[in-house]
């Protein structure tokens, strides 16, 4: 087993994390920066919870690009199992190898050990992250863990505490460099306590108005300040409405880009209605939008049905 001591992470102080996020156009607040730093210091996974579209996945992308290391992503879904998450043997290639060996008298004796070699292994995300050769650790994103079955969570526990995977035919792979693990959850269900205990926890909320404006200005090049502010105002107003799916930051960015693309400099009620599909994704929500006082919304006043 090799320890990950060779590599020293570049985040000596919390401000270094902040600077890194900033350099990658991600507006991160203090809790996120501090948690990220501690995750590297303590070698623990981060569990990010929050509504869809508040930028949880983006954290992993930024870290991967900041560390110049691959982002290995495991998208969770119902029924996700070990063969899709860990590894699978490449049966077609094994059969091919056997056929070839049969034709070649000399190689026949060694075929048994050869077909269970690493080159016949399909690496799935978890094994890939463990086997990543470095020089820097990979960023492993386990996305939307709440979609996976609970059995899968239990299975993850083992990997997240020891950072090693056993393939019966080959032996145990231990992480050369402990990957930086980020788990995200939309919180459609509560996760297992044991899994949570192994992680640093952070809830990411919808951003405050100033932060959201900064995000829009950073992420949508060419947008002017007044439009960014108007978009922020509408978004903040809409989030106070009891929609099925409140628009997240992702929708705010989409909308800002849409407005920029349509060359709309000033938002009027008709604009909101015409482009509603960018922001709201349920028919009920859109018809609800039509009943709102859009003038008040645009002025940033509190709106009531």
């Amino acid at each position, binding site marked *: 087993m090799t320890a990950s001591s060779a590599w020293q992470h570049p985040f000596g*102080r*919390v401000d270094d994390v902040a600077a890194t996020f900033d350099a990658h156009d991600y507006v991160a607040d*203090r*809790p996120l920066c*501090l*948690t990220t*730093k*501690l995750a590297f*210091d*303590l070698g*623990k996974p981060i569990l990010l*919870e929050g509504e869809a579209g508040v930028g949880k996945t983006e954290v992993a992308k930024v870290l991967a690009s900041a560390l110049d290391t691959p982002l290995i992503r495991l998208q969770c879904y*119902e029924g996700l199992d070990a063969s899709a998450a860990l590894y699978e*043997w490449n*049966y077609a290639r*094994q*059969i091919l190898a*056997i*056929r070839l060996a*049969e034709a070649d008298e000399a190689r026949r004796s060694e*075929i048994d050990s050869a*077909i269970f070699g690493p080159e016949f292994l399909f690496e799935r995300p978890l094994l890939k992250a463990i086997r990543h050769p470095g020089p820097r650790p990979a960023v492993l994103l386990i996305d939307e863990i*709440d*979609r996976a*079955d*609970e059995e899968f969570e239990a299975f993850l526990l083992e990997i997240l505490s020891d950072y090693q995977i056993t393939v019966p035919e080959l032996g145990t792979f231990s992480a050369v460099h402990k990957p930086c693990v980020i788990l995200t959850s*939309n*919180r*459609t*269900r*509560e996760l297992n*306590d044991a899994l*949570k*205990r192994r992680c*640093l*926890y*952070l*809830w990411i909320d919808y951003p405050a108005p100033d932060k959201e404006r900064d995000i829009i200005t950073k992420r949508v090049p060419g947008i002017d300040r007044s439009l960014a502010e108007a978009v922020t105002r509408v978004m903040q107003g809409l989030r106070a409405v*009891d929609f*099925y*799916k409140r628009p997240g930051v992702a929708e705010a960015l989409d909308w800002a880009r849409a407005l920029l693309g349509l060359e709309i400099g000033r938002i009027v009620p008709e604009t909101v209605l015409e482009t509603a599909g960018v922001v709201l994704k349920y028919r*009920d929500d859109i018809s609800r939008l039509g009943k709102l006082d859009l003038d008040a919304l645009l002025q940033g006043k509190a709106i009531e049905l």
Partner: protein
Amino acid sequence: MTSPAEPLVAQTLAICHAARAAGLPVTQARAIDVFRALAMIDWHDAEDYRLALRTNLVASREDEILFDRVFAIHFGHSEFEHDGGAILARSELLRGNLEAGGRSNEGHRDMLTEADTFGAQEVQRRANLAARWDADAPPLEQIIRELARRLATRPSRRNAPARHGARVDLRRSMRRSVRHGLDLVELARSARKTRKTRIVMLCDVSGSMDAFNPFLLQLMFGLQQALKSSRTLVFSTQVSEITQYLRRRSVVETLGEIGDKVRHWSGGTDVGAALRELNRTVLREGSARATVLIIISDGYDNGTPERIAAELEAAKRRIRTLVWINPMFGATTFVVRAAGMKAALPYVDHFLPAFNARALHDLVKGLAAVG
């Protein structure tokens, strides 16, 4: 890197203790991580100090809020005050006796008198469950197991490996043969998979349902134990998920924990809001065709019937079957009077009586068609 000074250690330990006392999952391992974390940050910065402790000690958003409160109290900001809600909720929860409950109305009374009119065996099964909470009634458990079996077994189109399956799985047979140099030594077989049904149970625990609490609890507990993947939520004016507590084996422990966590027990009723919350969270994910929603409520509601109808319409798009169990239904003189119930009826696939063991038996028979 600075090593933490003595007063800091004492203070941090005190906060850890306070957090544990407040109900946060502060284990020894987590406390150790807190100290490891402190060595890594500038703990002179009060904000960083708080955040470093928080990220290590909490496991949910509610925990975060609770921790911030504990932290503030520790440093003498006393604007936060503990409410006595837990004790209240617990006593309400355990007050599961119909006579002592004192909230009976005509529907309940019907139910009590009706039990006398059946034969010996019938009487045993029609026993008013409200009065027999802790009786370890085996018939009910059997019925629940049967219910779970009927709800959760549906043959899938897909096949899964099975030792004595009806089909020969050629692909897997091929793979197996690799070991033997491509000689087919044994055939792999497969059978149809059982498709998982996800059951979401939404239980009304408002004041008007108090009389049925023992029955409800037994049903929730039994169903959750039998079908591990199902989810149970209770609502009155708010919604709380109690799935994780129902997984515990001890009923007493579970009741205590639910009493601690669900503070709106015996409150008013807002079916519409509860459904909305459900639509937005639990029902949003996962396959609509695999989901059966069971609502247990008497339909007496403080909200508007239109809202219930609108939310049910939305919910129907996210589920396969809607089962409404009404404890008031089944008494001979019962008519649907609750406006909320009337609004809901057009969306309900199975409207079932279940206020006692016999009624539950009927319910299970009715559910044969749900699969």
